[in-house]
């Protein structure tokens, strides 16, 4: 069924527009209801550690230096120097020219290196350039590549173009995991989010990711809910499980726990794992650590008790 859907622009359009619609009011209400869950004591301890293990610790600035990336890697391996029981994060996410630095700094720690590629964050470059960048990241040792879709092509209805581009990047990735960034803040409607999710999955994405973090709004709870429903339905239809990454704007531990609740009650245990759900963030980690310490000791310590980067 899905193979037929990708044979032509018209067939792909028919398929994507045949997906069930998303009622925005209803999706927002469902996300808001899940956000009222009260996560306490043992459940909170479990969720805080899980959230830490799901973090893609990210620095995507023009001003990034090798020194900054090395510092971030040290933090990723051992987030809380005062408490070795704090787990390492899932990955460090950097621009592709810094992959080698991160790779060397992380060594055999198990923390993955994720590289943004394909003319991140705009995605506005020739396909050859995007593929060259992807190959470069893979060659430098990235475990995961985060690509952006061409939102211009998507919004003007050139779905096949988007599909073929994702396919080509996936091919260039080889066995390296491909995360496809939909930049949902630019897609705007939840119908677009669901269609883009399916499009990315049909093209071979291993993960679908909300945002670059450069556009506001970045990740939101209802958008993540819609994407989770899409990966659940996609697995029902094809048997293949795809991960979800919520990225950008998640700064507080409380928000991270809300994402975990949405994962838990939408797709369940199968996705409650760093292999299948990630939180892309830079400043979230310290709040997670602070709440973790609070839970263990009963007291809040100031921000200076946690490392800057």
């Amino acid at each position: 069924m899905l193979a037929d859907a990708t044979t032509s622009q018209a067939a792909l359009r028919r398929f994507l527009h045949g997906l069930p619609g998303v009622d925005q009011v209803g999706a927002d209400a469902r996300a808001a209801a899940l956000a009222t869950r009260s996560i306490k004591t043992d459940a909170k301890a479990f969720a805080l550690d899980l959230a830490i293990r799901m973090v893609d610790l990210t620095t995507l600035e023009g001003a990034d230096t090798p020194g900054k990336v090395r510092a971030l890697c040290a933090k990723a391996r051992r987030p809380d120097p005062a408490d070795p029981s704090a787990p390492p994060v899932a990955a460090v996410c950097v621009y592709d020219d810094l992959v080698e630095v991160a790779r060397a700094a992380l060594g055999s720690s198990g923390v993955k290196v994720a590289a943004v590629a394909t003319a991140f964050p705009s995605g506005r470059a020739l396909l050859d350039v995007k593929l060259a960048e992807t190959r470069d990241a893979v060659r430098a040792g990235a475990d995961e590549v985060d690509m952006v879709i061409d939102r211009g092509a998507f919004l003007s209805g050139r779905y096949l173009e988007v599909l073929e581009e994702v396919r080509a990047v996936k091919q260039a990735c080889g066995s390296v995991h491909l995360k496809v960034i939909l930049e949902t803040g630019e897609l705007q409607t939840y119908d677009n989010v669901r269609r883009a999710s399916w499009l990315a999955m049909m093209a071979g994405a291993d993960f679908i990711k909300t945002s670059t973090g450069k556009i506001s709004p970045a990740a939101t709870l209802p958008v993540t809910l819609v994407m989770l429903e899409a990966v659940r339905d996609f697995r029902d239809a094809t048997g293949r499980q795809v991960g979800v990454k919520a990225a950008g704007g998640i700064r507080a531990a409380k928000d991270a726990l809300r994402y975990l609740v949405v994962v838990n009650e939408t797709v369940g245990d199968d996705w409650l794992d760093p292999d299948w759900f990630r939180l892309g963030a830079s400043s979230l980690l310290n709040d997670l650590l602070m709440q973790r310490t609070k839970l263990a000791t009963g007291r809040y310590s100031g921000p200076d008790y946690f490392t800057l980067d």
Partner: protein
Amino acid sequence: MAGKTFTYAPAPESRAVVTLEPSYGLFVDGSFVDPVDGGVFATVNPADEQVLAQVSAAGARDVDRAVSAARAAYDGVWSRMPGAERGKYLFRIARILQERSRELAVLETLDNGKPIRESRDVDVPLAAAHFFYHAGWADKLEYAGLGPNPGPVGVVGQVIPWNFPLLMLAWKVAPALACGNTVVLKPAETTPLSALVFADICRQADLPAGVVNILTGAGETGRLVVEHPGIDKVAFTGSTEVGRQIARAVAGTGKRLTLELGGKGANIVFDDAPVDQAVEGIVNGIFFNQGHVCCAGSRLLVQESVADDVVDRLKRRLTTLRLGDPLDKNTDIGAINSAEQLARVRALADAGDEEGADRWSAPCALPDRGFWFPPTVFTGVSQAHRIAREEIFGPVLSVLTFRTPEEAVEKANNTPYGLSAGVWTEKGSRILSMAARLRAGVVWANTFNRFDPASPFGGYKESGYGREGGRHGLEAYLATEASA
């Protein structure tokens, strides 16, 4: 790390915000009094069967006293007071409801068995909203478009059900007071406590004595209130059976009457519906407040082409519903309100089995004590089944299918009731054409069980007559030159 499953730790709301008296009197003429000729009865927590308090049952002479107090307050103060002044009292009550919202939410959950999530986020805020809304009307009744020189009707007798004790009180009391009437209200015998705290709120608001009188008791007390000759208008929300008795009792007396009775709402899902939100709407339609909702979407009519998909998604969704301690902030499904109601739900569910429908219940462990029933879905139901016709008033959904919009309308309207309906489709023109043809007081489009004080609510056929809320709801509490 312990296991992979994300299990929520208990997160109970504290009971400490509620101070329960061992026993309660009747609220008559501005103070709590012992009954003259009534008895006492216990009100229990349906979640654990513990007795919460002893409550008075008002007898005939108690009803006399309350009606006289209401008449005196009506003649002496309330009906003569300028609307703007009445509005101030209503605003004050609304604000106190908000200030005491946590206490009221916990109390409502203890007495009723509904999840704290609902009493906290729905019942209490909506109750306050009704007082705010009607406070705004109190000095603008001339402009309600209901006729010239609108004035109050007199002393109003109100009998309310146990499913939304405080909210139903607000639906009844707020418009009555806004229009200048005085009130004798009887809450349901299984859920009297929030009404008694409301009595205290009336005192706190310095409401003139006798404007609101609250008589607790069972059906007999309700009958005495309804039949009392000093009552000018009766408002009742509850079962169709009791509604019939009241209509008979009131017939020929010249009393005005409004009835909000049972329902068997159709929730219609078309093949182009936003499917995940429709599933949420089905859940909200029938499992909200354990299905103890007269306008519940207890009949799911789903287009045949998507029926299997919708039912599969619904069942998957129901496995995540959390049933248990109603005071836990993560509980979705609380206790059935009483042993009698549980017996009725069980009997009707058993009738579904006997008639050959397929029963499926969400796999949740039921607590040992208290009154519990798991969220249940019957498939393979036809119009001829009792579970498709009778109001179950519990967490039981009957699933029927249809093929064309015509068939959906026919089946939806083929019921003695007509309180609510829902339509799920992405097609706006279809929503409008369905809404025009469905014989139901409320038709929700791509949502279900949403309430607002500005939106009138009421039924067709055996679901009663009259409207509550909105501009239309004022009509029952106003005498105008046109209606005189």
